[in-house]
């Protein structure tokens, strides 16, 4: 594989974490415009731990995930009772606040005579753990996909379990679920924390793949894209968001056929696809049909 193909595939893997995080919230009935913030929290926290304090990447990733989970839990506490658009706007406001805080965040250390660390809107360069530890691009790609596979297996197991039914029940009708004895607040807070951790993991991997991050990487465009990926791929299975990412980044950017017109093509396709399938390609009915077909 050439470097370009490896880069595209790695990007697909990274963004898939964000799309999965949007998907997890969507199936429990919440639409978030703010997942990019937790992706950003992960990127900054992970990058700082490895580049400034010499932590190993796995340890930094775990710590960043915990931080992402905590961040979304805290944002969720006052906002999860809000419905629909109100929740979306509250998450958008929180995410834009986070982005501006990244712009204001100057925190550097002198390492070997060089300042290292986030420098406000100048960004944060030199997140070189992958390079310094001799991890080849292909190996890094393997790492990203191994983690993604792990996340997917977890999703598929949860969706087949009682917990999965509870999640979808809360998503479809929270009041009905509550009347059946589900503690809706607890479920939603748990989902928020898990979604934050997933987004943060994507962020850590993103920061170490790019070696350079800046606040505007984590703007509203990224968040709405991940929402769109989850929705066009389909809300019937955790493979849906992946399909969404593959369709956009893989088929359109990777093929370079529509260079210069990619957004026009992608935008039109998404709008038409949603008329045909408002819950995405792999929606609940498609998934049931596939299951019957192959079991």
């Amino acid at each position: 594989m050439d470097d370009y193909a490896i880069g595209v595939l790695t990007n697909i893997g990274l963004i898939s974490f964000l799309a999965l995080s949007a998907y997890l919230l969507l199936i429990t009935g919440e639409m978030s415009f703010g997942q990019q913030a937790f992706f950003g929290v992960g990127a900054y926290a992970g990058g700082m731990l490895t580049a400034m304090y010499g932590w190993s990447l796995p340890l930094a990733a775990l710590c960043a995930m915990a931080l992402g989970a905590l961040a979304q839990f805290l944002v969720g506490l006052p906002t999860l009772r809000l419905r629909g658009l109100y929740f979306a706007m509250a998450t958008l406001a929180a995410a834009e606040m986070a982005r501006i805080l990244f712009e204001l965040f100057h925190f550097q250390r002198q390492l070997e005579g060089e300042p290292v660390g986030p420098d406000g809107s100048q960004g944060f360069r030199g997140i070189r753990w992958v390079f310094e530890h001799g991890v080849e691009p292909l190996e890094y790609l393997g790492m990203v996909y191994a983690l993604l596979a792990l996340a997917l297996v977890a999703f598929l197991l949860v969706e087949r379990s009682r917990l999965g039914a509870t999640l979808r029940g809360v998503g479809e009708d929270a009041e009905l679920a509550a009347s059946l004895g589900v503690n809706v607040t607890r479920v939603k807070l748990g989902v928020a924390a898990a979604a934050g951790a997933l987004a943060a993991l994507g962020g850590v991997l993103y920061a170490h793949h790019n070696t350079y991050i800046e606040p505007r990487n984590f703007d509203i465009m990224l968040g709405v894209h991940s929402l769109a990926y989850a929705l066009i791929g389909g809300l019937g299975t955790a493979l849906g968001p992946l399909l969404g990412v593959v369709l956009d980044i893989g088929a359109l950017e990777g093929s370079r056929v529509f260079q210069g017109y990619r957004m026009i093509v992608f935008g039109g396709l998404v709008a038409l696809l949603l008329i045909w399938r408002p819950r995405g390609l792999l929606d609940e009915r498609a998934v049931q049909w596939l299951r019957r077909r192959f079991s």
Partner: protein
Amino acid sequence: MSDLAQNTLDGLFLGSSYALLALGFTLIFGVLRRVNLSFGPAVMFGCYAATWVNLNFGAGLVLLALVTILGSILAGAYVERLCFAPHRGGSAIAAMVASFALWMQFEELASIVLPRHLYDFPPLHGGAPLAFGAMTLRIESLVMLFAALLMCALLWWILYRTRFGVAVRAVIDQPQAAQLAGINVPRVFMLTFALASAIGGLAGFLIAASHEQVTPMLGMWSTMKGLLAMMLGGLGSLPGAVLGGLALGLLEAHSQWFFGPQNRDLIAYALIFILLAARVPWMTTRSAS
């Protein structure tokens, strides 16, 4: 003291542009119960159409205003047909994501037709601002404020004094009953969309002409400011949209003076977040699922 008064004037000017955008947003949200993320980008499309006409033919201001408004209506109609008409009574999320997809189209189209990052737009009023002692007042500010108030009055007249207005209010309150009463609901949707886009186009023209420039960022800017002002004033209320716009403008002008531009946005978002989390009654009583 005079700084405070000057900031208040600037805030009212900024706020009246937000108010106009929020009016268009609110009209669509009130009738369709859907958020149109492409509202700002459609306005930007109108402004770019006018800029293109200006670059190639050097038209006058009135003609440019007409081109902006017509361009916005055209773009709005495209959005309505592709994103909202098919999802009527269906999924709100699908409609919103579809409108985001078209936003991407408008942005790329704008950068293909006019690839520079910044284009000049002819000024609304080239002359010097009015001076009152130490304070200054741009003519543009007065025009913008006047336009916002005029649009609000015009909308009130349309909604409360015409047959079309009765139909629109019926659709807002009881969509099914309205349909049963023989109101052509899809037609009301289309006309409302056109009206909202026309208001957005007027707002876009005034904003471009008073800043004397257009950039592709105008789309996202209009959507964000319109959405925030609409939320602040209470979803779906027209007087609320104007008040929300003015309040957002005043807040931004004063906090920019005291704390600088980055903190200005931080404060605005923090306020929205806190008000939503506190579930203040005027913002969260309407159902918006």
